[in-house]
């Protein structure tokens, strides 16, 4: 049932529907509008736009990534050198390289199914957990990586809904982590039920400030948030360099913060080394909250209206400026929470380069998730898996982890230009309009 409601909502929100102008003869008998609605929405089109297209975009991105992997593989290159002697070997070498890389990737992300089954069998037979924990470790790690992605994707998606491009999630993420870490390690006498929320709040506030500044500059001066959030990123990196080498530096020679107090930690579900913690369900709760905010509240109505047509929103009595500041603040707060859960649940301390790459990833997954909280959760899961597996791909198949960024760049392009996907796969279904996310430099 919620899914159906959601489908109804989507014409307004994602503007994925381009019903042609009604031709005069379309005088429909007065049925209940719900049924009429289903006719017009052409469910197949919604399905294509919101599921098939992103899936194909991801698939195509993986294929392109695979080609790069093949090109970068020494054995494959050697084999291609001997192409005319043994063409089959060349193709096979490339294929092997791709398969090896991706099986390392997905194996590293999801674990070995046989091991997992065996783990469960042992557990049910003997109550022994060690084998099971070992088997689900990779998947647990992927979910751990998914957690900040959900928050960050929600942060960027919220901005998109209001016509704002928060490209600075990376800096907000870092500041949120530092804020949470500071509250986490500097206060030592609080019980957990105060300390933990306080530390989360500290992270959210730090991120919110980092988002609010470009939001305010946009609202007040029309300064474009894309450049400003990038600048805020760089300022955050420099600031964190200073903090980690100075005021927030832990005892020792490494530029890292102290470990947060146990009272500020997000509890973990399993014993070490499994790091899956309450941050993950918290992220899901926030996805629901963002959904509720966007689609079920008057504030969300304003946010979406301002995003879709700021002029009409102003005409209708909404304050565009207030919405810009509000959304950038909330967006920053979500990114800050990502940092907070990462510190409090997973790392327990912050070091340099903490946020590397998360900002750009979050843009990709917000686009992939069509700026819808549910889509964001699914996209975050995918990215968590990609990132989780990338490490093992790097160690097992010697493929640098950065291939993930290449794939993500391609995925964004394919999601943003469905025409390319339609052209590649010769698709004739689906009629998505291009969603205008942002406008030029002017106001």
């Amino acid at each position, binding site marked *: 049932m919620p899914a159906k409601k959601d489908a109804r909502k989507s014409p307004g929100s994602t503007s994925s529907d381009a019903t042609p102008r009604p031709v005069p003869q379309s005088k429909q008998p007065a049925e209940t509008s719900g049924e009429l609605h289903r006719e017009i929405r052409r469910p197949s089109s919604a399905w294509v736009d919101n599921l098939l297209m992103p899936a194909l975009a991801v698939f195509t991105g993986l294929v392109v990534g695979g080609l*790069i992997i093949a090109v970068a593989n020494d054995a494959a290159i050697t084999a291609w050198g001997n192409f005319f002697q043994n063409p089959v070997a060349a193709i096979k070498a490339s294929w092997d390289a791709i398969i090896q890389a991706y099986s390392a990737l997905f194996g590293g992300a999801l674990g070995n199914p046989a091991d997992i089954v065996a783990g469960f069998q042992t557990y049910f037979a003997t109550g022994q957990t060690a084998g099971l924990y070992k088997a689900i470790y990779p998947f647990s790690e992927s979910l751990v990586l998914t957690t900040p992605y959900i928050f960050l994707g929600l942060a960027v998606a919220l901005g998109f809904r209001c016509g704002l491009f928060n*490209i600075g999630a990376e800096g907000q993420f870092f500041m949120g982590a530092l804020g949470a870490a500071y509250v986490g390690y500097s206060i030592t006498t609080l019980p957990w039920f105060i300390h933990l929320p306080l530390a989360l709040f500290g992270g959210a506030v730090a991120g919110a400030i980092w988002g609010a500044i470009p939001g305010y500059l946009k609202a007040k001066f029309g300064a474009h948030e894309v*450049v*400003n959030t990038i600048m805020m990123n760089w300022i955050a990196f420099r600031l964190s360099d200073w903090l980690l080498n100075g005021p927030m530096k832990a005892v020792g020679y490494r530029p890292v913060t102290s470990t947060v107090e146990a009272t500020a930690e997000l509890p973990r579900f399993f014993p070490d080394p499994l790091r899956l913690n309450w941050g993950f369900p918290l992220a899901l709760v926030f996805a629901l909250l963002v959904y509720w905010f966007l689609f079920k509240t008057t504030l969300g109505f304003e946010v979406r209206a301002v995003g879709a047509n700021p002029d009409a929103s102003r005409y209708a009595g909404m304050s565009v400026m207030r919405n810009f500041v509000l959304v950038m603040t909330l967006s920053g707060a979500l990114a800050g929470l990502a940092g907070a859960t990462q510190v409090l649940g997973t790392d327990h301390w912050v070091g340099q380069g903490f946020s590397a790459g998360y900002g750009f990833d979050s843009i990709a997954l917000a686009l992939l998730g069509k700026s819808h909280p549910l889509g964001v959760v699914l996209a975050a899961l995918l990215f968590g898996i990609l990132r989780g597996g990338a490490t093992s791909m790097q160690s097992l198949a010697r493929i640098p982890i950065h291939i993930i960024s290449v794939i993500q760049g*391609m995925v964004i*392009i394919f999601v*943003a230009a469905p025409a390319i996907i339609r052209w590649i796969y010769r698709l004739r279904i689906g009629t998505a309009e291009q969603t205008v996310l*942002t406008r*030029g430099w002017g106001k």
Partner: protein
Amino acid sequence: MAEQTQAAIMSKPNRQRLGTGLTLVIAGLLMLVLFVRGTQSGQTATFGMNTGGAALMIPDLVLPVQPTLYTLIVVTVFLGAWQLARGGIRSTGWLLVIVSFCFVAAFLIWATKDGSFNLVGMLNGTLGRAIPIALAALCGVISERAAVVNIAIEGIMLIAAMTAVISATLAHSLVVGLLVAILTGAVVAALHAVLVIRFKVDQIVSGVAINIFGTGITSFISSRYLESNIDVLNNSGTFKVMSIPLLSQIPILGPIFFEQGPIVYIALLLVAVLHVLLFYTPWGLRTRAVGEHPKAADTLGINVFLTRYVNVIIGGMIAGIGGAYFTIGSVGRFDQNMTAGKGFIGLAAMIFGKWNPIGAFLSSLLFGFADSLQVKMQILRVPIPSEFLAMAPYIVTMIVLTGIVGRAIPPAADGTPYEKQ
């Protein structure tokens, strides 16, 4: 009656007058608190006016610290008080320029007290650091004058920086490296152009995607190949400084402008050439028409799409030169993410320069100055953490974007795809 009210309206920018006046007075007081405190009478600051072996050495500038500071403060406060009391100075922009100058000068004198500081060397560094920003800004100007927002400059420069150094190292020729960088810029920009013109992808989204792609692919290649094969792939050497005969002998200006590498000269030339092309040739007229009112251009038989493709690709070639500057123009090797936001700063320079080649260049100098200053300040051991000084270019960018100083109107169609129907 109407005339009276009109007069009343004309005197309305009162609030603005008060605002700038107060800002100036506060800036003066701030200078007093920040810079005069902690100085002693009799201290001097020495500013070097020469670099290297110029034929015509001019004496260093030795300034008494306290009197100079007081002079700067008095100028600032006086201007502020004048503005508060009488108004009359219409151009807020110029006032802010003057006060910024006084403030920076005061800061420099304070920082240099009892020491010496090579001013010309710093200004020479300013130009050097401004060049990639200026090239990025020129790329932006050329694309956006045809109404295509190109936020992919960062990614273009990053990729071009890498291809430049690899090809230069392999071919043992920096010129080859530069040409490959230009070609790379053209190719990546063409990708952006196809996405936004042919496929009508949101221009910012496409730019961001290319940036992500650029970061990914360069980091990928860097860690896969460059790090393990530095001498074979990632060690090109750099363009040598070419002193221009005679001109480089001019005191102060000579060492700043005419003792630079070839890419700097190319950039300076490009500024002039693009300015002429944009405002005095048919190509420029058509470009501006396409950026302002593509439909009108279309009705006159101008191919809007072709114009946009050409401009975006030319812009990409310019950004390619900018990318080359990072590697073969300055350090001779590629490091991951070495562009460090310069492409975005270039966009800010473009906006501040009112979408005008010369304006974009001049505002790039501002960013170059902030950047150069922070490096030199670290050498002077100013009691400010170096990390804060390093924020300067980014903060300047944000201030500039507020448009408090000179707001410009972008090309009317900037950022909108053209629907031909």
